[in-house]
């Protein structure tokens, strides 16, 4: 499994914000519709299909003129080591592949949107028309065919790159170190190491200045309240049910022991 492990890295410092990746991702998904669902090319190019924009742009501002930080960040699935979406999916439609990609199986998805509730990064998007939920698939089909992800292929800069997980991590680390030297501030490779025990490491990592973690949506301690609560309730609930059953069992034996001298033991009526 380890040999096939791939990764993608988005370098926010080398990014020139041309959004070729965003457009190409959408185009590649339309191509998938053509290939796999037999939809006509023209039709796929006419429809909005916003749920197939697996990369979306989130712009944010902080500060006050002229000391303002303005960021147009790319939002995408992080492909967590411990995908919370996978854990919660009642249809078992989500899997973590050998490549590292976390996939929603479109045929299995029932559109319950539990993954949306569970994702610590608020990534999956539900489409009313198809009644299913979608998110970045790390171009798993392309990776398995020896091609780069659509976003990496599109990047005219050298900001999104993909390859084996170890290669990507090494390149990312080298870049982060260089940026630290040049700009004199801390740069992180978000996801190269486990972010926390909840999500683990990420197969789609991000290079960013630590001070920009917020606008680039790179929380230090991503947690899914829903996932945690759900697990607690399931375990607690199972325990409570078990305790109830055990209690009942005890009570039954208690009845059996004392039923003779019970007013409720209507022996003659049985």
């Amino acid at each position: 499994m380890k040999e096939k492990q791939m990764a993608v890295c988005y370098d926010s410092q080398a990014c020139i914000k041309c959004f070729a990746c965003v457009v190409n991702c959408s185009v590649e998904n339309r191509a998938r519709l053509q290939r796999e669902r037999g939809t006509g090319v023209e039709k796929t190019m006419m429809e909005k299909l916003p749920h197939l924009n697996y990369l979306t742009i989130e712009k944010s501002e902080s500060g006050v003129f002229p000391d303002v930080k303005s960021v147009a960040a790319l939002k995408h699935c992080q492909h967590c080591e411990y995908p919370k979406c996978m854990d919660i999916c009642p249809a078992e439609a989500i899997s973590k592949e050998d490549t590292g990609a976390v996939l929603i199986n479109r045929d299995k998805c029932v559109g319950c949107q539990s993954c949306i509730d569970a994702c610590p990064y608020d990534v999956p998007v539900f489409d009313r028309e198809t009644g299913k939920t979608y998110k970045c698939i790390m171009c798993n089909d392309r990776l398995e065919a020896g091609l780069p992800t659509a976003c990496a292929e599109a990047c005219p800069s050298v900001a999104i790159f993909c390859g084996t997980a170890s290669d990507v991590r090494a390149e990312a680390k080298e870049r982060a170190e260089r940026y630290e030297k040049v700009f004199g501030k801390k740069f992180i490779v978000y996801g190269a190491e486990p972010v926390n025990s909840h999500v683990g490491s990420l197969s789609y990592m991000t290079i960013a200045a630590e001070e920009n973690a917020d606008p680039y949506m790179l929380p230090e301690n991503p947690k899914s309240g829903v996932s945690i609560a759900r697990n607690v309730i399931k375990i607690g609930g199972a325990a409570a049910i078990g305790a109830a059953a055990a209690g009942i069992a005890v009570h039954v034996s208690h009845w059996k022991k004392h039923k003779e001298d019970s007013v409720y033991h209507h022996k003659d009526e049985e």
Partner: protein
Amino acid sequence: MNDNGRQITLFTNLQMWYHKHIIHYMIFFILTGLPLVSPWFHWIAYAVGVPVAAFSGAADITSVGLQICRAAHRITAVLWIVTSIPIVFAMLPKIGRWDMTPRRREGQGWVEYIKEGLIDTKRVYIDWQYPKYMGKYNLLQIAAAWAVIGICLLMLASGAVLWFRLWFSEGLVSVMRVAHLAGFMAMVVFLIFHVYFAIHPVNRAGYEAMFRTGKDSEAHARKKHPGLFL
């Protein structure tokens, strides 16, 4: 037994009808809900999905089954609400006679009342004797009844939010989702106790009343539910 042959009505026909329906609904809710709680119960969805997938040619049987479960779950909820309407109209005006509120005697403090109620309950379920003060329901039954009404309302509300989740904020949906699961767990615990005690010999008369006659003999009631006659 000293029986004057008189009967008292414990449950009206409407209540009996409603309770039977609730049982059906609960079975449906649980069966259709369990596959969504855990993949351990996917066999339910699969079984339901097989005939449908055979006709629709859908790719994944479990997925089809899950969709059916979800739809059935919601339909059940709608039916439950619909059948509840006459009940609510019929019963709410008579809420004073439900005998489901704690009724202290004159001058009795809460602590004393609760202690008395608990001891009375113990008398029935541990000592297997007749109670001294219990009315139609003992204190634990009263508490459980309100709890289950609350749980049912919570399940309906959270279920509605989940069904129409696109109308609500993601935050609210997340909370309601957790609430729905928690409510389910609580409901299962309640049902375990409820069904057990319902079929327990201690409640034989109650069972008969709920499912067959709707009535209990006055003589028996005086012994089992002295509080009714105080």
